[in-house]
């Protein structure tokens, strides 16, 4: 270094006048120390934040399991609350029912004769067929709650219905419910009163069961659903073997046939957008669309959905049951039926629908990329809901019990209403 002669045209590159005389000033030290302390504090704070955020979901699951462990007598107050949340929309707050539509539970001969055990069976499996209660006839369309309520919750509801709404003395415990679930948990809904007669002795006369009539078309439809055609994929390969859907793929089981057919025609015409479904619908004939709509409408399957979007379930319940007039949103259930089971032919069931699908569709109504609802009803609602409302209502609907399949006779009556391709947009 030293033997190089300095070049007069360039200053010395290594010249640093302060280096030897000055120390690092103390503010630099203090800033460095402060930064280090701040870093450590942030590290501790963030890790607690992660724990707290994880807690909510997990804690709920844990509480459920501890509850289950206590095999003590069912909590009737909890049963009353659960009844109000799950049953009262149809059966009334005091179980008085609605004449001609929903059977009473207070003073009902079915509950009297069958007790908490029969109620457990019915809550778990649901009912899909005509039945008589106290001598009056009812359509019998009860969702199956087995897939959405825990054993403890069912035991509380059944015990409340038997002892709180009626004067039965016998309650049912969670382990007993668990035993019933093992035997009957995955069975189809009761085929109306005729099905209940097998469960409850001495039940008064019940309407005859309408044996499921599998038409001659069923084999062709089954192939369409299970294997697809040369050009079209199998329906079940995305929508699931039981039509229960997944993520953004919607649940189809139990939706009204005219609604399903209209959606397929809309995909075909391009009035509802989804590339995959447009592809499928264009490969289907009108006849196949009608058959598929009936196939899924008459399908009963357990719920495949559960809350997944961290939505506020209380807010979701409020929107679904009461609506929110401050933002001009009516209750979902005013059109989509009590507990969101759907009102044929135009209003699909929304109970047990996949939360990602619901939230996504609401966002599409809001953005205008879906616009095929009757009278543009859903567009206004979609626009009024903000992101967290959409997640709240989607998660709440996912927590509900699925709707039962449509009655065969009802289906047959509706078939004439299924719109054809060139038909008027409903």
């Amino acid at each position, binding site marked *: 270094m030293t033997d190089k002669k300095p070049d007069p045209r360039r200053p010395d590159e290594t010249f640093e006048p302060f280096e030897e005389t000055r120390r690092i000033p103390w503010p630099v030290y203090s800033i460095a120390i402060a930064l280090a302390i701040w870093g450590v504090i942030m590290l501790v704070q963030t890790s607690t934040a992660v724990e707290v955020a*994880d807690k909510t979901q997990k804690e709920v699951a844990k509480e459920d399991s501890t509850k289950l462990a206590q095999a003590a007598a069912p909590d009737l107050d909890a049963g009353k609350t659960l009844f109000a949340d799950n049953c009262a929309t149809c059966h009334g707050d005091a179980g008085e029912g609605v004449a001609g539509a929903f059977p009473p539970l207070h003073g009902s001969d079915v509950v009297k004769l069958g007790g908490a055990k029969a109620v457990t069976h019915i809550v778990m499996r649901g009912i899909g067929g005509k039945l008589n209660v106290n001598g009056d006839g009812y359509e019998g369309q009860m969702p199956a709650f087995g897939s959405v309520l825990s054993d403890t919750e069912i035991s509380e509801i059944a015990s409340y219905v038997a002892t709180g709404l009626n004067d039965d003395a016998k309650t049912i415990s969670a382990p007993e419910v668990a035993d019933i679930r093992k035997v009957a948990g995955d069975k189809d809904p009761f085929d109306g009163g005729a099905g209940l007669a097998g469960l409850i002795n001495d039940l008064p006369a019940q309407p005859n069961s309408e044996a499921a009539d599998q038409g001659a078309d069923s084999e062709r439809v089954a192939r369409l659903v299970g294997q697809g055609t040369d050009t079209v*994929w199998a329906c079940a390969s995305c929508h699931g073997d039981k039509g229960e859907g997944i993520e953004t793929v919607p649940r189809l089981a139990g939706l009204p046939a005219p609604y399903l057919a209209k959606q397929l025609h809309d995909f075909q015409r391009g009035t509802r957008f989804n590339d995959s479904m447009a592809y499928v619908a264009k490969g289907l004939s009108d006849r196949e669309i009608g058959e598929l709509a009936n196939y899924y409408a008459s399908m009963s399957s357990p719920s495949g959905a559960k809350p997944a979007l961290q939505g506020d379930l209380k807010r979701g319940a409020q929107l679904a049951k009461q609506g929110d007039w401050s933002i001009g949103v009516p209750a979902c259930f005013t059109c989509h039926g009590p507990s969101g089971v759907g009102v044929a032919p135009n209003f699909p069931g929304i109970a047990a629908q996949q939360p990602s699908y619901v939230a996504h569709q609401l966002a599409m109504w809001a953005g205008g990329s879906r616009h095929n609802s009757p009278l543009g009803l859903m567009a206004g609602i979609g626009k009024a809901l903000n992101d967290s409302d959409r*997640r709240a209502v989607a998660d709440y609907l996912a927590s509900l019990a699925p709707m039962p399949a449509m009655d065969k006779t009802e289906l047959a009556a509706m078939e004439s209403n299924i719109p054809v391709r060139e038909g008027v947009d409903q």
Partner: protein
Amino acid sequence: MNRYLPLAITALAILALATLFLVIAPGMQISAQGPSQGLKPYTEAEARGRAVYVSMGCLYCHSQQPRSLAQAPDAERGWGRASVAGDYAYDDPHQLGTMRTGPDLMDIGDRLPSQAWQLTHLYQPRAIASWSIMPAYPYLFEHKDKAGPDDVVVKLPAQYAPKSGVIVAKQDALDLVTYLQGMKRQYAPPKDGLRDNGYALIAEKQRDATDATTASN
């Protein structure tokens, strides 16, 4: 420029500190995490499919890391819950990706479980969506006059179907689809699952505050 020693020591110390907090500490944190409960190791076919995924460079356009709701509306898009470290336990190297030219694929097996859909889409994405910019992968398929007993025939619309014969999937295509079908992360994340939850907590507090003001109005 005379104090080489203190300068060198300081530089090394800074590097060591950075390595400690950015490499060693997270490494210890992550290595303590086992695979998430519910996550299965790859089957042989899935592992082969994963190799195809890597060799095709799917990573350049598709990420495998759904974000938490505070960061992006991935859950609402149907891309699944935010991933945690344990979800990648069997991935070496992981395929996190940084670009989202296409959608996130962490949950594709849940979202699009159909083998037939995937095959059609790999053969010609434009057969399904005319606007798709994803490349077609015809070399993962062969054109045969007649499908053999074990061949998987690709379902194609007339526009893209061959004039005669059928398109069948090669082993690579089948493996890749098996891998994609196995991409399922819908099980509940472990309680101590490591992930960046972003501003979830702050967002929650803000929401509570807004709720309180709305209620008091």
